[in-house]
Protein backbone atom coordinates (compact mmCIF):
# COMPACT_ATOMS: atom_id res chain seq x y z
CA UNK A 1 0.00 0.00 0.00
CA UNK A 2 1.36 3.43 -0.79
CA UNK A 3 1.92 5.74 2.16
CA UNK A 4 -0.89 8.13 2.87
CA UNK A 5 -0.53 11.72 3.80
CA UNK A 6 -2.64 13.32 6.51
CA UNK A 7 -3.48 16.97 6.68
CA UNK A 8 -0.35 18.02 8.48
CA UNK A 9 1.79 16.43 5.87
CA UNK A 10 3.01 13.57 8.01
CA UNK A 11 3.59 10.42 6.08
CA UNK A 12 1.75 7.54 7.64
CA UNK A 13 1.38 4.05 6.43
CA UNK A 14 1.16 0.74 8.04
CA UNK A 15 4.41 -1.06 7.60
CA UNK A 16 4.00 -4.73 6.91
CA UNK A 17 4.73 -6.81 10.00
CA UNK A 18 8.36 -7.54 10.53
CA UNK A 19 9.51 -4.69 8.36
CA UNK A 20 10.95 -1.55 9.83
CA UNK A 21 10.15 1.57 8.04
CA UNK A 22 11.37 5.12 8.29
CA UNK A 23 8.58 7.60 8.48
CA UNK A 24 9.63 10.92 7.14
CA UNK A 25 8.30 13.94 8.93
CA UNK A 26 7.92 16.83 6.60
CA UNK A 27 6.50 20.24 7.07
CA UNK A 28 5.35 22.78 4.60
CA UNK A 29 8.18 25.14 3.94
CA UNK A 30 6.28 27.43 1.66
CA UNK A 31 6.71 30.92 3.03
CA UNK A 32 4.43 33.67 1.88
CA UNK A 33 1.11 31.96 1.62
CA UNK A 34 -2.23 33.08 2.91
CA UNK A 35 -4.45 30.71 4.76
CA UNK A 36 -7.24 29.41 2.60
CA UNK A 37 -5.47 29.89 -0.72
CA UNK A 38 -2.91 27.89 -2.60
CA UNK A 39 -0.14 29.32 -4.69
CA UNK A 40 1.07 32.83 -4.97
CA UNK A 41 -1.02 35.36 -6.83
CA UNK A 42 0.89 37.32 -9.48
CA UNK A 43 0.21 40.88 -10.41
CA UNK A 44 -1.15 41.21 -13.95
CA UNK A 45 1.58 43.65 -15.03
CA UNK A 46 4.58 41.82 -13.67
CA UNK A 47 4.30 38.29 -14.96
CA UNK A 48 7.38 36.88 -16.60
CA UNK A 49 6.92 37.13 -20.38
CA UNK A 50 3.12 37.16 -20.21
CA UNK A 51 1.11 39.60 -22.25
CA UNK A 52 -0.37 42.54 -20.39
CA UNK A 53 -3.78 44.11 -21.08
CA UNK A 54 -3.74 46.14 -24.32
CA UNK A 55 -4.87 49.32 -22.60
CA UNK A 56 -1.99 49.08 -20.18
CA UNK A 57 0.47 48.39 -22.96
CA UNK A 58 -0.55 51.43 -24.97
CA UNK A 59 -0.69 53.56 -21.86
CA UNK A 60 2.78 52.50 -20.73
CA UNK A 61 4.21 53.11 -24.20
CA UNK A 62 2.69 56.59 -24.27
CA UNK A 63 4.10 57.28 -20.83
CA UNK A 64 7.49 55.97 -21.94
CA UNK A 65 7.45 58.42 -24.81
CA UNK A 66 6.08 61.34 -22.78
CA UNK A 67 8.49 61.05 -19.86
CA UNK A 68 11.67 62.04 -21.72
CA UNK A 69 9.81 64.84 -23.51
CA UNK A 70 8.59 66.18 -20.19
CA UNK A 71 12.08 65.89 -18.73
CA UNK A 72 13.40 67.70 -21.78
CA UNK A 73 10.86 70.51 -21.34
CA UNK A 74 11.74 70.77 -17.67
CA UNK A 75 15.49 70.90 -18.23
CA UNK A 76 15.29 73.32 -21.16
CA UNK A 77 13.11 75.74 -19.22
CA UNK A 78 15.68 75.84 -16.44
CA UNK A 79 18.78 75.98 -18.61
CA UNK A 80 20.93 79.07 -18.70
CA UNK A 81 24.52 80.21 -19.00
CA UNK A 82 26.93 77.86 -20.72
CA UNK A 83 24.68 74.85 -20.54
CA UNK A 84 22.05 75.78 -23.08
CA UNK A 85 19.41 73.14 -23.71
CA UNK A 86 17.05 74.20 -26.49
CA UNK A 87 13.37 73.51 -25.90
CA UNK A 88 11.40 71.25 -28.25
CA UNK A 89 9.96 74.34 -29.91
CA UNK A 90 13.41 75.83 -30.45
CA UNK A 91 14.63 72.52 -31.79
CA UNK A 92 11.76 72.50 -34.26
CA UNK A 93 12.72 76.01 -35.34
CA UNK A 94 16.31 74.83 -35.78
CA UNK A 95 15.13 72.01 -38.00
CA UNK A 96 13.00 74.45 -40.01
CA UNK A 97 15.95 76.78 -40.43
CA UNK A 98 18.07 73.92 -41.77
CA UNK A 99 15.24 73.01 -44.08
CA UNK A 100 14.81 76.58 -45.32
CA UNK A 101 18.54 76.83 -45.91
CA UNK A 102 18.00 73.92 -48.28
CA UNK A 103 20.57 71.62 -46.65
CA UNK A 104 18.50 69.28 -44.51
CA UNK A 105 17.21 66.98 -47.26
CA UNK A 106 20.61 66.96 -48.94
CA UNK A 107 22.30 65.98 -45.68
CA UNK A 108 19.70 63.35 -44.95
CA UNK A 109 20.08 61.87 -48.39
CA UNK A 110 23.90 62.00 -48.36
CA UNK A 111 24.11 60.10 -45.07
CA UNK A 112 21.34 57.65 -45.90
CA UNK A 113 22.89 56.87 -49.27
CA UNK A 114 26.22 56.03 -47.65
CA UNK A 115 24.49 53.75 -45.17
CA UNK A 116 22.34 52.14 -47.84
CA UNK A 117 25.29 51.32 -50.09
CA UNK A 118 27.75 50.43 -47.35
CA UNK A 119 25.36 48.35 -45.29
CA UNK A 120 24.04 46.49 -48.32
CA UNK A 121 27.58 45.51 -49.25
CA UNK A 122 28.25 44.53 -45.66
CA UNK A 123 25.13 42.35 -45.42
CA UNK A 124 25.80 40.74 -48.81
CA UNK A 125 29.28 39.70 -47.71
CA UNK A 126 27.99 38.60 -44.32
CA UNK A 127 25.20 36.46 -45.79
CA UNK A 128 27.42 34.66 -48.30
CA UNK A 129 30.35 34.05 -45.95
CA UNK A 130 28.21 33.67 -42.82
CA UNK A 131 26.01 30.94 -44.30
CA UNK A 132 29.14 29.17 -45.50
CA UNK A 133 30.72 29.56 -42.09
CA UNK A 134 27.70 28.28 -40.22
CA UNK A 135 27.27 25.35 -42.60
CA UNK A 136 30.75 24.08 -43.38
CA UNK A 137 33.29 23.51 -40.63
CA UNK A 138 36.08 24.04 -43.16
CA UNK A 139 34.88 27.55 -44.01
CA UNK A 140 34.41 28.19 -40.32
CA UNK A 141 37.95 27.06 -39.50
CA UNK A 142 39.33 29.36 -42.18
CA UNK A 143 37.27 32.48 -41.43
CA UNK A 144 36.85 32.35 -37.67
CA UNK A 145 40.39 33.55 -36.70
CA UNK A 146 40.56 36.61 -38.98
CA UNK A 147 36.98 37.73 -38.24
CA UNK A 148 37.44 37.22 -34.52
CA UNK A 149 40.56 39.38 -34.73
CA UNK A 150 39.16 42.09 -36.98
CA UNK A 151 36.00 42.37 -34.92
CA UNK A 152 38.05 43.66 -31.99
CA UNK A 153 39.78 46.41 -33.95
CA UNK A 154 37.47 49.38 -33.36
CA UNK A 155 36.38 50.57 -36.78
CA UNK A 156 36.58 54.14 -35.52
CA UNK A 157 40.33 53.62 -35.13
CA UNK A 158 40.47 52.97 -38.87
CA UNK A 159 38.93 56.33 -39.79
CA UNK A 160 42.19 58.31 -40.07
CA UNK A 161 43.84 55.52 -42.01
CA UNK A 162 40.95 55.22 -44.46
CA UNK A 163 40.82 58.96 -45.01
CA UNK A 164 44.58 58.93 -45.57
CA UNK A 165 44.39 56.08 -48.06
CA UNK A 166 41.13 56.75 -49.82
CA UNK A 167 40.75 60.52 -49.69
CA UNK A 168 37.70 62.36 -48.45
CA UNK A 169 35.01 61.48 -50.95
CA UNK A 170 32.42 58.71 -50.67
CA UNK A 171 34.76 55.71 -50.96
CA UNK A 172 36.36 55.91 -47.49
CA UNK A 173 33.00 56.46 -45.80
CA UNK A 174 31.37 53.48 -47.49
CA UNK A 175 34.47 51.38 -46.85
CA UNK A 176 34.33 52.33 -43.19
CA UNK A 177 30.67 51.38 -42.92
CA UNK A 178 31.49 48.00 -44.44
CA UNK A 179 34.51 47.46 -42.19
CA UNK A 180 32.66 48.64 -39.14
CA UNK A 181 29.76 46.24 -39.49
CA UNK A 182 30.73 43.28 -41.66
CA UNK A 183 32.55 41.28 -39.01
CA UNK A 184 29.70 41.54 -36.54
CA UNK A 185 27.18 40.70 -39.25
CA UNK A 186 29.30 37.80 -40.44
CA UNK A 187 29.65 36.11 -37.06
CA UNK A 188 26.01 36.63 -36.20
CA UNK A 189 24.76 35.29 -39.55
CA UNK A 190 27.02 32.26 -39.02
CA UNK A 191 25.33 31.69 -35.64
CA UNK A 192 21.92 31.93 -37.28
CA UNK A 193 22.94 29.34 -39.89
CA UNK A 194 24.30 27.04 -37.18
CA UNK A 195 20.87 27.08 -35.55
CA UNK A 196 19.25 25.21 -38.45
CA UNK A 197 18.18 21.89 -36.87
CA UNK A 198 20.27 18.91 -37.86
CA UNK A 199 17.17 16.82 -38.52
CA UNK A 200 15.86 19.25 -41.11
CA UNK A 201 19.17 19.10 -42.96
CA UNK A 202 19.25 15.30 -42.71
CA UNK A 203 15.67 15.13 -43.95
CA UNK A 204 16.68 17.19 -47.00
CA UNK A 205 19.53 14.81 -47.76
CA UNK A 206 17.21 11.80 -47.64
CA UNK A 207 14.93 13.68 -50.05
CA UNK A 208 17.69 13.76 -52.60
CA UNK A 209 19.08 17.23 -51.93
CA UNK A 210 22.77 17.85 -52.54
CA UNK A 211 24.85 20.15 -50.38
CA UNK A 212 24.28 23.18 -52.57
CA UNK A 213 20.54 22.60 -52.63
CA UNK A 214 20.56 22.27 -48.85
CA UNK A 215 22.40 25.58 -48.57
CA UNK A 216 20.13 27.43 -50.98
CA UNK A 217 16.77 25.82 -50.34
CA UNK A 218 17.02 24.88 -46.66
CA UNK A 219 19.69 26.79 -44.75
CA UNK A 220 18.96 30.12 -46.44
CA UNK A 221 15.17 30.20 -46.01
CA UNK A 222 15.43 28.86 -42.46
CA UNK A 223 17.97 31.57 -41.64
CA UNK A 224 16.10 34.41 -43.33
CA UNK A 225 14.26 35.80 -40.29
CA UNK A 226 17.45 35.55 -38.22
CA UNK A 227 19.42 37.37 -40.93
CA UNK A 228 16.90 40.22 -40.93
CA UNK A 229 17.24 40.43 -37.15
CA UNK A 230 21.02 40.64 -37.47
CA UNK A 231 20.70 43.44 -40.03
CA UNK A 232 18.35 45.28 -37.69
CA UNK A 233 20.58 44.96 -34.64
CA UNK A 234 23.87 46.02 -36.24
CA UNK A 235 22.48 48.90 -38.27
CA UNK A 236 23.04 51.25 -35.32
CA UNK A 237 26.76 50.39 -35.36
CA UNK A 238 26.93 51.32 -39.04
CA UNK A 239 25.47 54.75 -38.28
CA UNK A 240 27.97 55.30 -35.47
CA UNK A 241 30.94 54.73 -37.71
CA UNK A 242 29.48 56.90 -40.46
CA UNK A 243 29.05 59.74 -38.00
CA UNK A 244 32.70 59.56 -36.98
CA UNK A 245 33.76 59.60 -40.61
CA UNK A 246 31.52 62.57 -41.40
CA UNK A 247 32.71 64.48 -38.35
CA UNK A 248 36.27 64.32 -39.65
CA UNK A 249 35.79 64.84 -43.35
CA UNK A 250 32.68 65.58 -45.32
CA UNK A 251 30.99 68.30 -47.35
CA UNK A 252 27.50 67.19 -46.51
CA UNK A 253 25.76 64.71 -44.28
CA UNK A 254 23.88 64.81 -40.99
CA UNK A 255 26.96 64.49 -38.77
CA UNK A 256 28.79 67.05 -40.87
CA UNK A 257 25.88 69.40 -40.19
CA UNK A 258 26.33 68.87 -36.46
CA UNK A 259 29.95 70.02 -36.68
CA UNK A 260 28.84 73.07 -38.69
CA UNK A 261 26.18 73.93 -36.18
CA UNK A 262 28.73 73.65 -33.39
CA UNK A 263 31.02 76.08 -35.19
CA UNK A 264 28.21 78.65 -35.31
CA UNK A 265 26.99 77.80 -31.81
CA UNK A 266 23.58 76.76 -33.14
CA UNK A 267 22.68 74.27 -30.49
CA UNK A 268 19.06 74.04 -31.64
CA UNK A 269 20.27 72.72 -35.01
CA UNK A 270 22.50 70.17 -33.30
CA UNK A 271 19.52 68.97 -31.32
CA UNK A 272 17.38 68.79 -34.43
CA UNK A 273 19.90 66.50 -36.13
CA UNK A 274 20.10 64.24 -33.08
CA UNK A 275 16.34 63.85 -33.10
CA UNK A 276 16.48 63.07 -36.83
CA UNK A 277 19.02 60.31 -36.16
CA UNK A 278 16.61 58.83 -33.64
CA UNK A 279 13.70 59.00 -36.05
CA UNK A 280 15.70 57.38 -38.84
CA UNK A 281 16.62 54.59 -36.45
CA UNK A 282 13.06 53.95 -35.32
CA UNK A 283 11.71 54.02 -38.86
CA UNK A 284 14.33 51.62 -40.26
CA UNK A 285 13.78 49.34 -37.27
CA UNK A 286 10.06 49.22 -37.90
CA UNK A 287 10.64 48.70 -41.62
CA UNK A 288 12.94 45.74 -41.00
CA UNK A 289 10.48 44.25 -38.52
CA UNK A 290 7.73 44.55 -41.14
CA UNK A 291 10.01 42.95 -43.72
CA UNK A 292 10.65 40.04 -41.35
CA UNK A 293 6.95 39.53 -40.81
CA UNK A 294 6.32 39.56 -44.54
CA UNK A 295 9.30 37.48 -45.60
CA UNK A 296 9.03 34.87 -42.85
CA UNK A 297 5.52 34.76 -41.46
CA UNK A 298 6.21 31.22 -40.21
CA UNK A 299 8.73 32.48 -37.67
CA UNK A 300 6.95 34.57 -35.11
CA UNK A 301 9.30 36.87 -33.30
Amino acid at each position, binding site marked *: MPPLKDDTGTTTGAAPPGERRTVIQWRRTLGAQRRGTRGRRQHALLRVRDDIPAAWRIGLMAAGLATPILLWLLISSGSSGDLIVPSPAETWQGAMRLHDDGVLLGDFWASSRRILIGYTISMAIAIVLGLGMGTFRSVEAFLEPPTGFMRYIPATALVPLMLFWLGIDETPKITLIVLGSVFFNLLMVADVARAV*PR*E*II*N*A*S*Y*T*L*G*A*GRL*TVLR*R*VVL*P*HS*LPGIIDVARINLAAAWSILVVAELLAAEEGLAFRIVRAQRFRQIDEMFAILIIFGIIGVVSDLALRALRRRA*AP*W*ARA
Partner: protein
Amino acid sequence: MSLTIVRPEKLEIEGLVKTFPGSRRRPAVTAIDGIDLRVSAGELVCIVGASGCGKSTLLNVVGGLEPADAGRVEIDGEAVVGPGADRGMVFQGYSLFPWKTVAENIAFGLETARVPRAERRERVDELIAIMGLAAWADRIPRELSGGMRQRVAIARALAPRPDILLLDEPFGALDAQTKRVMRDFLLGVWRDIGTTILMVTHDVEEAVYLAGRVYVLTSHPGRVAAEVPVPLPADRGPAITRDPLFLDLRDHVQDILIDQVRV
Protein backbone atom coordinates in the same frame (compact mmCIF):
# COMPACT_ATOMS: atom_id res chain seq x y z
CA MET B 1 0.44 -22.56 -43.67
CA SER B 2 1.00 -19.90 -46.21
CA LEU B 3 3.31 -20.49 -49.09
CA THR B 4 6.79 -19.20 -48.45
CA ILE B 5 7.77 -16.99 -51.32
CA VAL B 6 11.47 -16.38 -51.73
CA ARG B 7 11.78 -12.68 -52.18
CA PRO B 8 14.92 -10.71 -52.96
CA GLU B 9 16.45 -8.92 -50.02
CA LYS B 10 15.79 -5.19 -50.17
CA LEU B 11 18.03 -4.33 -47.25
CA GLU B 12 20.88 -6.40 -45.94
CA ILE B 13 22.95 -5.48 -42.91
CA GLU B 14 25.83 -7.66 -41.77
CA GLY B 15 28.19 -7.17 -38.84
CA LEU B 16 27.35 -3.51 -38.46
CA VAL B 17 29.42 -1.68 -35.84
CA LYS B 18 29.07 1.98 -34.94
CA THR B 19 31.14 3.72 -32.30
CA PHE B 20 30.92 7.38 -31.43
CA PRO B 21 34.43 8.61 -30.63
CA GLY B 22 34.98 9.98 -27.14
CA SER B 23 37.25 12.70 -25.94
CA ARG B 24 39.58 13.13 -22.98
CA ARG B 25 36.65 13.51 -20.62
CA ARG B 26 34.05 11.26 -22.24
CA PRO B 27 34.68 7.65 -23.13
CA ALA B 28 33.76 6.48 -26.64
CA VAL B 29 30.24 5.05 -26.97
CA THR B 30 29.71 1.88 -28.93
CA ALA B 31 26.11 2.34 -30.01
CA ILE B 32 25.90 -0.73 -32.24
CA ASP B 33 28.09 -3.77 -31.78
CA GLY B 34 27.52 -6.21 -34.60
CA ILE B 35 24.02 -6.24 -36.00
CA ASP B 36 22.83 -8.59 -38.75
CA LEU B 37 19.47 -7.73 -40.24
CA ARG B 38 17.54 -8.33 -43.45
CA VAL B 39 14.40 -6.83 -44.89
CA SER B 40 12.81 -8.39 -48.00
CA ALA B 41 11.12 -6.38 -50.70
CA GLY B 42 7.61 -5.41 -49.68
CA GLU B 43 8.13 -6.46 -46.08
CA LEU B 44 7.27 -4.40 -42.99
CA VAL B 45 9.84 -5.05 -40.28
CA CYS B 46 9.93 -3.48 -36.84
CA ILE B 47 12.86 -2.98 -34.50
CA VAL B 48 12.18 -2.69 -30.80
CA GLY B 49 14.71 -1.93 -28.13
CA ALA B 50 15.23 0.03 -24.96
CA SER B 51 15.94 3.72 -25.09
CA GLY B 52 19.53 4.41 -26.06
CA CYS B 53 20.22 0.98 -27.55
CA GLY B 54 21.15 2.42 -30.90
CA LYS B 55 17.92 2.24 -32.90
CA SER B 56 18.16 5.76 -34.31
CA THR B 57 21.84 5.22 -34.98
CA LEU B 58 21.00 2.08 -36.96
CA LEU B 59 18.47 3.91 -39.12
CA ASN B 60 20.86 6.81 -39.64
CA VAL B 61 23.52 4.41 -40.90
CA VAL B 62 21.03 2.80 -43.28
CA GLY B 63 19.94 6.27 -44.35
CA GLY B 64 23.56 7.10 -45.11
CA LEU B 65 23.61 9.96 -42.61
CA GLU B 66 26.25 8.31 -40.40
CA PRO B 67 29.13 6.19 -41.68
CA ALA B 68 29.44 2.67 -40.29
CA ASP B 69 32.68 1.70 -38.57
CA ALA B 70 32.50 -1.89 -39.74
CA GLY B 71 30.12 -4.16 -41.52
CA ARG B 72 28.06 -4.20 -44.67
CA VAL B 73 24.90 -2.19 -45.42
CA GLU B 74 23.37 -2.86 -48.83
CA ILE B 75 20.18 -1.86 -50.58
CA ASP B 76 19.37 -4.20 -53.48
CA GLY B 77 22.93 -5.44 -53.26
CA GLU B 78 24.45 -1.97 -53.52
CA ALA B 79 26.56 -0.55 -50.71
CA VAL B 80 25.23 2.51 -48.88
CA VAL B 81 27.82 5.28 -48.95
CA GLY B 82 25.68 8.36 -48.32
CA PRO B 83 22.15 9.66 -48.09
CA GLY B 84 19.81 9.51 -51.07
CA ALA B 85 16.18 9.73 -52.07
CA ASP B 86 16.01 5.95 -52.53
CA ARG B 87 15.75 5.64 -48.74
CA GLY B 88 12.91 7.76 -47.42
CA MET B 89 13.23 8.67 -43.75
CA VAL B 90 10.84 9.88 -41.10
CA PHE B 91 12.66 11.15 -38.07
CA GLN B 92 11.99 10.76 -34.39
CA GLY B 93 11.76 14.47 -33.85
CA TYR B 94 10.10 17.12 -35.82
CA SER B 95 11.77 17.58 -39.20
CA LEU B 96 9.29 19.30 -41.54
CA PHE B 97 10.35 22.52 -43.23
CA PRO B 98 8.59 25.09 -41.03
CA TRP B 99 8.34 27.74 -43.78
CA LYS B 100 6.79 25.42 -46.37
CA THR B 101 3.12 24.47 -46.63
CA VAL B 102 2.05 20.84 -46.43
CA ALA B 103 1.99 20.60 -50.23
CA GLU B 104 5.40 22.28 -50.56
CA ASN B 105 6.90 20.00 -47.92
CA ILE B 106 5.68 16.93 -49.79
CA ALA B 107 6.89 18.35 -53.11
CA PHE B 108 10.48 18.93 -51.94
CA GLY B 109 11.78 15.49 -52.85
CA LEU B 110 10.15 15.77 -56.27
CA GLU B 111 11.76 19.14 -56.93
CA THR B 112 15.24 17.85 -56.13
CA ALA B 113 14.55 14.97 -58.53
CA ARG B 114 13.49 17.51 -61.18
CA VAL B 115 10.07 15.94 -61.69
CA PRO B 116 8.15 18.16 -64.16
CA ARG B 117 5.72 20.58 -62.56
CA ALA B 118 2.55 18.93 -63.84
CA GLU B 119 3.55 15.47 -62.67
CA ARG B 120 4.77 16.93 -59.39
CA ARG B 121 1.38 18.44 -58.69
CA GLU B 122 -0.34 15.22 -59.57
CA ARG B 123 1.82 13.14 -57.25
CA VAL B 124 1.58 15.63 -54.41
CA ASP B 125 -2.21 15.77 -54.74
CA GLU B 126 -2.36 12.00 -54.78
CA LEU B 127 -0.33 11.73 -51.57
CA ILE B 128 -2.35 14.49 -49.92
CA ALA B 129 -5.49 12.54 -50.71
CA ILE B 130 -4.03 9.26 -49.40
CA MET B 131 -2.91 10.97 -46.21
CA GLY B 132 -6.27 12.67 -45.70
CA LEU B 133 -4.64 16.08 -45.67
CA ALA B 134 -6.70 17.74 -48.41
CA ALA B 135 -8.10 20.38 -46.09
CA TRP B 136 -4.61 21.22 -44.83
CA ALA B 137 -2.60 21.37 -48.05
CA ASP B 138 -1.90 25.10 -47.77
CA ARG B 139 -1.21 25.22 -44.04
CA ILE B 140 2.27 25.41 -42.58
CA PRO B 141 3.46 22.82 -40.05
CA ARG B 142 2.97 25.11 -37.06
CA GLU B 143 -0.77 25.04 -37.72
CA LEU B 144 -1.00 21.22 -37.70
CA SER B 145 -1.48 18.72 -34.89
CA GLY B 146 1.23 16.20 -34.08
CA GLY B 147 -0.55 13.36 -35.89
CA MET B 148 -0.99 15.45 -39.02
CA ARG B 149 2.64 16.50 -38.97
CA GLN B 150 3.76 12.89 -38.91
CA ARG B 151 1.42 12.11 -41.79
CA VAL B 152 3.01 14.95 -43.75
CA ALA B 153 6.45 13.61 -42.87
CA ILE B 154 5.46 10.15 -44.12
CA ALA B 155 3.96 11.60 -47.30
CA ARG B 156 7.09 13.66 -47.88
CA ALA B 157 9.29 10.60 -47.49
CA LEU B 158 7.07 8.58 -49.84
CA ALA B 159 6.88 11.23 -52.56
CA PRO B 160 10.13 10.33 -54.37
CA ARG B 161 8.95 6.66 -54.34
CA PRO B 162 11.84 5.31 -52.29
CA ASP B 163 12.96 1.68 -52.35
CA ILE B 164 12.57 1.52 -48.60
CA LEU B 165 10.92 3.68 -45.98
CA LEU B 166 12.82 4.12 -42.71
CA LEU B 167 10.64 5.22 -39.81
CA ASP B 168 12.19 6.24 -36.48
CA GLU B 169 9.50 6.10 -33.79
CA PRO B 170 7.14 8.04 -36.04
CA PHE B 171 4.30 7.86 -33.53
CA GLY B 172 6.41 8.20 -30.40
CA ALA B 173 5.17 11.67 -29.54
CA LEU B 174 1.48 10.94 -30.16
CA ASP B 175 -1.21 10.10 -27.63
CA ALA B 176 -2.50 6.53 -27.39
CA GLN B 177 -5.66 7.10 -29.46
CA THR B 178 -3.92 8.96 -32.29
CA LYS B 179 -1.24 6.28 -32.27
CA ARG B 180 -3.85 3.58 -32.92
CA VAL B 181 -5.38 5.53 -35.76
CA MET B 182 -1.96 6.18 -37.23
CA ARG B 183 -0.84 2.56 -37.14
CA ASP B 184 -3.94 1.41 -39.06
CA PHE B 185 -3.29 4.26 -41.40
CA LEU B 186 0.32 3.16 -41.92
CA LEU B 187 -0.78 -0.43 -42.56
CA GLY B 188 -3.20 0.85 -45.18
CA VAL B 189 -0.52 2.90 -46.90
CA TRP B 190 1.88 -0.03 -46.81
CA ARG B 191 -0.70 -2.38 -48.38
CA ASP B 192 -1.78 0.16 -51.00
CA ILE B 193 1.66 1.32 -52.05
CA GLY B 194 3.42 -1.96 -51.45
CA THR B 195 6.60 -0.33 -50.25
CA THR B 196 9.26 -1.85 -47.99
CA ILE B 197 9.26 -0.47 -44.47
CA LEU B 198 11.78 -0.68 -41.65
CA MET B 199 10.35 0.92 -38.54
CA VAL B 200 11.85 1.59 -35.13
CA THR B 201 9.60 1.75 -32.11
CA HIS B 202 9.79 1.13 -28.39
CA ASP B 203 6.12 0.16 -28.29
CA VAL B 204 5.99 -3.64 -28.37
CA GLU B 205 2.29 -3.83 -29.15
CA GLU B 206 2.73 -1.43 -32.04
CA ALA B 207 5.60 -3.53 -33.39
CA VAL B 208 3.65 -6.80 -33.28
CA TYR B 209 0.56 -5.11 -34.69
CA LEU B 210 2.41 -3.76 -37.70
CA ALA B 211 5.29 -6.03 -38.53
CA GLY B 212 5.75 -9.27 -40.36
CA ARG B 213 8.91 -9.70 -38.32
CA VAL B 214 10.20 -8.02 -35.19
CA TYR B 215 13.84 -7.59 -34.27
CA VAL B 216 14.48 -7.14 -30.56
CA LEU B 217 17.74 -5.38 -29.76
CA THR B 218 19.85 -5.77 -26.66
CA SER B 219 20.32 -2.62 -24.70
CA HIS B 220 23.60 -0.86 -24.94
CA PRO B 221 25.45 -1.69 -27.04
CA GLY B 222 22.83 -2.74 -29.56
CA ARG B 223 22.89 -6.29 -30.85
CA VAL B 224 20.07 -8.46 -32.11
CA ALA B 225 18.67 -10.29 -29.09
CA ALA B 226 15.94 -12.08 -31.02
CA GLU B 227 14.19 -12.15 -34.34
CA VAL B 228 10.49 -12.90 -33.91
CA PRO B 229 8.33 -13.72 -36.95
CA VAL B 230 4.74 -12.53 -36.64
CA PRO B 231 2.59 -15.04 -38.54
CA LEU B 232 -0.58 -12.97 -38.36
CA PRO B 233 -2.62 -12.20 -41.49
CA ALA B 234 -1.47 -9.15 -43.42
CA ASP B 235 -4.85 -7.43 -43.40
CA ARG B 236 -4.91 -6.68 -39.70
CA GLY B 237 -7.31 -4.43 -37.91
CA PRO B 238 -8.10 -3.43 -34.35
CA ALA B 239 -9.79 -6.81 -33.77
CA ILE B 240 -6.46 -8.57 -33.97
CA THR B 241 -5.43 -7.13 -30.62
CA ARG B 242 -7.78 -9.67 -28.99
CA ASP B 243 -6.40 -12.60 -30.97
CA PRO B 244 -4.63 -15.04 -28.57
CA LEU B 245 -1.74 -15.41 -31.00
CA PHE B 246 -1.29 -11.65 -31.07
CA LEU B 247 -1.32 -11.50 -27.29
CA ASP B 248 1.14 -14.40 -27.02
CA LEU B 249 3.52 -12.78 -29.46
CA ARG B 250 3.25 -9.45 -27.72
CA ASP B 251 4.03 -10.97 -24.35
CA HIS B 252 6.86 -12.99 -25.83
CA VAL B 253 8.52 -9.93 -27.33
CA GLN B 254 7.85 -7.99 -24.16
CA ASP B 255 9.57 -10.69 -22.07
CA ILE B 256 12.66 -10.66 -24.27
CA LEU B 257 12.79 -6.90 -24.08
CA ILE B 258 12.41 -6.80 -20.31
CA ASP B 259 15.26 -9.29 -19.98
CA GLN B 260 17.37 -6.84 -21.93
CA VAL B 261 16.49 -3.85 -19.84
CA ARG B 262 17.09 -5.66 -16.55
CA VAL B 263 20.86 -5.87 -16.50
